[in-house]
């Protein structure tokens, strides 16, 4: 370890640091264009989705994607998820997690660089900066300029654009939770629920602050992900790397021309730093601030082209390939890093969960029965000596039309049943109950067996009275005691 060297400066230690504003420069290149594309797609999905319609008939909402908290339903195009099917949501979350592992092990922090909402909105706000204030140099100049009417006006204009974007962002969020056109109208006529205004207010504020001002600080100081990341990357993952064996020692074109043996390919033009949205210098090596957006690759490739050197001084590469290349091996094609046991294993796990969920979706029944026997009292002796048990049945009709359902006893010979509305006079082995569209109906059922019937297991069977004749069986138990009363 080298000895610490004294530096000039005051006596005070600098315990708190103000942020150094990042003025990233415009750049064009394949990665930048891909970033545009991802931004358009993700923002498009986010803002447009709530407005899509989906006809579900007269008994269900017509919004394609709707999280209906009040009625506890989640609609997604042709799929309707009930609370008891929450495992689908859990499955999606697990898939999202494994998907993140997969992407990270294959292409490092590509999620951070392209698709993370913080990145997408930060990028959007940086374009606003560029649109209002101009590119990097103009912005630096404006930042340094003293406050005057012109600067106030400019900042006011820029911040109001921030605010409008933030408001649309917060506004779009609530549209996922209610009928979008109705809520939209109610929102502006001040008739929406206070929760809607509060949600929009909070999301507008966070978008404004995080996207407009905090930016890379969210990634560096607040986000846990870059820290977890380390555990998921290895020397075979693609990451953005500066090939120092090729670049060093840095020097201008002129110097290099004079002394080609001494200088590497990096001409120290700082373009890679200027374009970086988090303002870091990738040439210092892997660091937490790098979101792997590859804009520095675009920048350096362009510089290399100008000075007539091969591209890829900064490149997507694995650390392993970098080392090999430094030893003189030919560059490894990127796809090789994508296809390896680890990524294949993640893909298989991911796909099999997806497949299992699709299968479950395909075969799931829209008819469901659950039964809970009364425990207090567990059974009842009737005046004719027979024994009666009571059960609470939950009949689920998950179709968006009302259906008749047949409840039947399976087992328990000789027993009869009736419900609270049907009454004991109409006791029979089967009963028909109408269940409203897209609803759960709770029915109290009484089962009566003749005197001397022993305690035993039996089932209720629910069958929908339509073409499908979907059915569900709910096993339960009949309780009988000693000769009672």
């Amino acid at each position, binding site marked *: *370890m*080298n*000895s*610490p*060297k*004294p*530096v*000039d*400066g*005051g*006596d005070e*230690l*600098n*315990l*708190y*640091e*103000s*942020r150094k504003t990042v003025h990233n420069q415009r750049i064009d290149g394949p990665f930048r264009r891909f970033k545009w594309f991802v931004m358009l797609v993700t923002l498009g999905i986010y803002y447009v989705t709530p407005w899509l319609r989906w006809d579900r008939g007269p008994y269900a909402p017509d919004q394609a994607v709707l999280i209906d908290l009040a009625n506890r339903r989640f609609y997604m195009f042709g799929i309707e998820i009930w609370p008891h099917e929450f495992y689908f949501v859990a499955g999606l979350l697990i898939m999202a997690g494994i998907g993140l592992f997969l992407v990270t092990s294959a292409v490092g922090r590509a999620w951070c660089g392209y698709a993370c909402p913080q990145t997408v909105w930060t990028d959007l706000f940086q374009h606003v900066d560029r649109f209002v204030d101009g590119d990097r140099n103009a912005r630096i100049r404006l930042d340094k300029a003293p406050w005057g009417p012109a600067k106030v006006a400019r900042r006011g204009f820029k911040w109001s654009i921030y605010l409008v974007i933030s408001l649309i962002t917060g506004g779009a969020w609530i549209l996922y939770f209610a009928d979008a056109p109705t809520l939209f109208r109610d929102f502006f006529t001040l008739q929406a629920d206070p929760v809607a205004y509060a949600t929009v207010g909070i999301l507008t504020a966070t978008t404004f602050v995080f996207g407009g001002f*905090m930016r890379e*600080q969210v990634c560096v*100081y607040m986000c846990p992900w870059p820290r977890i990341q380390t555990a998921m990357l290895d020397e075979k993952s693609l990451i953005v790397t500066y090939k120092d064996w090729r670049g060093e020692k840095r020097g201008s074109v002129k110097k290099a021309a004079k002394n080609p043996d001494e200088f590497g390919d990096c001409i120290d033009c700082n373009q890679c730093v200027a374009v970086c949205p988090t303002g870091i210098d990738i040439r210092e090596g892997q660091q937490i601030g790098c979101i792997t957006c590859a804009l520095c690759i675009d920048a350096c490739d362009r510089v290399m082209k100008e000075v007539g050197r091969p591209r890829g001084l900064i490149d997507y590469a694995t650390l392993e390939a970098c080392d090999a290349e430094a030893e003189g091996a030919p560059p490894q094609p990127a796809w090789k890093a994508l296809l390896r046991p680890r990524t294949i294993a993640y893909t298989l796990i991911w796909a099999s969960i997806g497949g299992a969920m699709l299968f479950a979706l395909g075969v799931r029944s829209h008819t469901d029965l659950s039964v809970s026997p*009364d*425990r*207090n*009292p567990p059974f*009842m*002796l*009737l*005046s*004719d*000596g027979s024994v*009666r048990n*009571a059960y609470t049945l939950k009949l689920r009709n998950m179709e968006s039309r009302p259906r008749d359902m047949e409840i039947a006893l399976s087992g328990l010979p000789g027993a009869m049943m009736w419900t*609270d509305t049907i*009454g*004991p006079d109409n006791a029979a082995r089967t009963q028909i109950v109408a269940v409203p569209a897209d609803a759960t109906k709770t029915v109290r059922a*009484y089962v009566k067996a003749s*005197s001397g019937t022993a305690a035993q297991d039996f089932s209720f069977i629910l069958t929908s009275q339509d073409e499908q004749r979907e059915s569900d069986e709910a096993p339960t138990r009949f309780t009988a005691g000693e000769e*009672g*009363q």
Partner: protein
Amino acid sequence: MMADKPSDGKRIDDPTGTELVGHEWDGIEELNTPLPRWWLWTFYLTIIWSAVYVVLYPAWPLIEKGTEGVLGWSSRGDLIDEMGAADAARQTFREQLAAIDVDKLRDNPDLLQQALAGGQAAFKVNCTQCHGSGAAGNQKLGYPNLNDDDWIWGGDLDAIHYTIAHGIRQDEDNGLRQGVMPAFDGAFDAAQLDAVTDHVLSLSKKAQSNAIGAQLYADNCVACHGASGEGDRAQGAPRLDDAIWLRGGSRAEIKAQILNPKMGAMPGWEERLDPATVKMLTAYVHSLGGGEQTVANTADDPVTEPEVDGDEQP
């Protein structure tokens, strides 16, 4: 290891390029990684926030009680407000319930549902002590089971309502639901007691009848319990021909009941609960599984005796 220690300025750690704070333990030196300034502001803000909070809200415990805060807010006050609001919300329901006849409740599913929920809650508070939380009663103590289909004073909505309102064997009440069974201690000798017990058991096919028992029954019991033991709800005389025994159906239990009948009592709830709650209780008890249809033809006794339900019985 560290070298020179200049008195004046910052020192930089070479490999990392980071400033040192000057703390050292066993040759390991602490690097200075400054927090961002916004973080510092956030921290100050939380301090200001807590100061404001302490002033506005109850916060500081003192010896007797805590500071109250200038807003005058308290969680108890919150609760009272909420309960007031809930009560106000229930007001319409209570008014509707008070206005409706109890046997019309079934025609109004919404009201019925609320009544059942309210009835269940009221049952838990007022009735479970005797009838049990599942309303299954207690045979040893003679509290009737409210789930079964045997009703001593009648099991339709009106009868149940009347029983709950007036209670059973309440002296101060109007004389209804006062069913009394005389004690036969001393009236029968041992053989007669055996014979009449046999006859009672034979009514529900649990023993052979016999001539002596049948005669004794005809002389002493028929007036209330009926020739075939069918009981009489008007007097609250229980059926003897079914499988349900309020105080046990064993030979010994029946004998004990003949000799010295135990007769339960139930308070009239009209006095203690408001009419809406009594109706809710009625709906709930009726819904337990044994509720009977109201019989329309009660032409003979329009007002005075709307069959009492009850389960109380010697």
